[in-house]
């Protein structure tokens, strides 16, 4: 039942949302969360249907009808690996990843209206609700639809160019006059940090992408430590900067989205390091409080390049089911 790491992710995000609304001073209305969820699910359904139609028409025109039936499970984030090029051998660490289908493993039979197709948009909508603030439902609708559509439109070789939640937030902030992000919304209390680390650890361990979080937090923490030493601040300043609940949430739940980050571990480490460096620069040189989101947005497309240099099997959420 809980083999899909996304279910854990949804549970934890819902927990944080509840915690945030219950214990933090958020101006977040349940209706806004429902709007985000409804938008993401609807957009996903429509886009999936459209893509399915297009594909079936294409295959019909080629006289090939074997893939004409489209289902939820066939949506971009659950599509099963079917890469024509030869795969490099799976490394030790990758073999731990439960969701990797080994090359040539049989695809699970797509089940019409399978709920697994709903998991990703649900995660995106919960992420948007946690991070994006707005007073208008239309803004949330915009963020949600851009987030989901980006997965269908902005993709190269079956991989998303941008993290859906991230591009949704960026679109809302850039395109409307009433969206904002509250970087200080979680505060810097240690027990929140522990909850985030614990929950994030469980998800990442299942997804096998903990290396990205470690690289990001490690690199960012290191840069901030250098700055701290250089400026001569006491270490509580450093700790305060790193204990930010928003930063941890980002490091554990956004930067690690396996469908938008490089496949190979070396590439991932480089990529996370680059995001950390850019975040550091944006925050300390340009004084942008929401630096992490911009850094991720700007560097997301780098994944393509890194994947081209370091090839590795692509990540799949669903465990290959033996027929």
């Amino acid at each position, binding site marked *: 039942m809980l083999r899909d790491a996304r279910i854990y992710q949804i549970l934890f995000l819902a927990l944080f949302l509840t915690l945030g609304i219950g214990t933090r001073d958020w101006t977040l209305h349940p209706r806004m969360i429902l709007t985000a969820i409804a938008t993401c699910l609807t957009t996903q359904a429509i886009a999936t249907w459209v893509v399915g139609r297009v594909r079936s028409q294409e295959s019909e025109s080629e006289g090939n009808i074997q893939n004409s039936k489209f289902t939820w499970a066939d949506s971009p984030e659950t599509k099963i690996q079917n890469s024509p090029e030869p795969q490099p051998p799976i490394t030790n660490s990758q073999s731990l990843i439960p969701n990797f289908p080994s090359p040539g493993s049989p695809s699970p039979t797509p089940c019409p209206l399978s709920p697994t197709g709903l998991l990703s948009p649900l995660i995106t909508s919960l992420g948007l609700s946690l991070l994006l603030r707005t*007073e208008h439902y239309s803004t949330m609708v915009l963020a949600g639809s851009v987030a989901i559509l980006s997965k269908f439109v902005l993709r190269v070789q079956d991989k998303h160019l941008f993290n859906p939640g991230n591009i949704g937030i960026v679109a809302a902030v850039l395109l409307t006059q009433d969206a904002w992000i509250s*970087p200080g919304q979680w505060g810097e209390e240690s027990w929140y940090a522990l909850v985030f680390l614990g929950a994030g650890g469980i998800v990442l361990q299942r997804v096998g992408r903990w290396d990205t979080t470690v690289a990001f937090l490690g690199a960012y923490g290191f840069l901030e430590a250098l700055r701290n030493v250089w400026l001569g601040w006491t270490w509580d300043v450093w*700790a305060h900067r790193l204990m930010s609940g928003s930063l941890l949430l980002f490091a554990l739940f956004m930067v690690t989205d396996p469908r938008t980050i490089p496949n190979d571990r070396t590439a991932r480490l480089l990529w996370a390091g680059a995001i950390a460096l850019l975040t550091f620069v944006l925050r300390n040189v340009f004084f942008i409080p929401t630096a992490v989101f911009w850094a991720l947005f700007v560097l997301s497309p780098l994944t393509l390049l890194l994947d081209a240099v370091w090839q590795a099997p692509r990540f799949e959420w669903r465990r290959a089911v033996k027929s």
Partner: protein
Amino acid sequence: MKLFQTLTISLLVLISSLFVATKAWAFCGFYVAKADANLYNQASQVAIARSGNRTVLTMANDYQGEVKDFAIVVPVPVVLKKEQVEVGSPKAIARLDAFSAPRLVEYFDPDPCAPQVSFERMPLPAAAPQSRRDGAAQRDRNSLGVTIEEKFTVGEYDILILSAKESGGLETWLIENGYKIPQGARDLLRPYIRQKMKFFVAKVNLKEFKQAGYQNLRPIRMTYDSPRFMLPLRLGMVNAKSAQDLLVYVLTPTGQAEVTNYRTVKVPSGNEVPTFVKNEFNAFYKSMFQTSYEREGRNIAFLEYAWDMANCDPCSAEPLSREELKDAGVFWLDQPEVPSPLSSPFRRRPMPTSGVFITRLHVRYTRDKFPEDLMFHATNNRELFQGRYVLRYPFMGEATCSQGKQYVRSLPRRFEQEAQTLAKLTGWNIQDIRNKLPNAQVQSLSWWEQLWLALSGS
């Protein structure tokens, strides 16, 4: 919320005076008194008008020592020239304070047996005195890596803008020039020097001060362009003996301002409290603030007010006029009529907006809980908020109809509820509160009803 208000009087009590009185000023920097004046710096008020990178920062001054002893050192992001520094208007700060202060609102229950009556509202603004004072600074000479970037006199202040290469040099320079540096300041100067920040050093020019015949030091206002939207707290904590209060009025064209590196939390608001609080509002607000501050972990910024400058409801003071806003540092009203995008199609009523949104933040800070300087950002959040406490006066006349009897029977429960709310907000003893309640038989509540009320809260 409820439908029984007939006559409404909003009563405004200015809270800031509670915190500002008898304290000295120095959040941004520290006092460098030249005599052993008894210096405390526990409260300060700052108005920040900001649009884009342009910032107009007005520091209101409640220094309580001898004027000749006044001197401050404040890190600033850029070198300020004479035309960028001016003497601000004390009245503007007082007006911002009055406009945004937490408030008490009174409602009077109607006669439950009388037919529905329309209600009217009569705001009664109350004024609060503003106390201020000042001090002085010193002058120059080079070596030690300290450069006097600018030197000028503005109003009653002699001002130096210093840049320094290292903290030891700056400390020595300040000491050699007669400034009394608090112990431990040296380590704190270094991070600012390394961030290439400059030091704004001000002292009082006694001649100017006497000539002008001022009683108090006036606020200092600086204008600069910098992406840094912050207030340096750390230096101010060097000679702080206890928690300090800082009231920040942020004026933006967009919406609420927030602190980005600490939580911004709304003060409790909208609570119904017993009517005797009217006479003890200062004590009530102080206790309530302290209780909330402790409950939230002592490391947060409280939002006390967030409103468009076009209106208020109820008003604790009239909204600031265009001229007063300019006095408070708002500079974008001069630019060709580009008010907020929402305003143009509408006239005043539906969505009045003046192009200025005020956020009042109240920070009580100590060294252990605020390791970093305060960083802010302006958001597009136009949600209105005010710290507001409600007094509901019961109808005490004779009520003979059945509805009236029911109303009278409901009073003890309501009083108890208000007492519980008050106890919870302030931490005051519930028994003491009950003793001050109006004459309705509180005893008529059974123990389980009281328990239920206590558990269910306000």
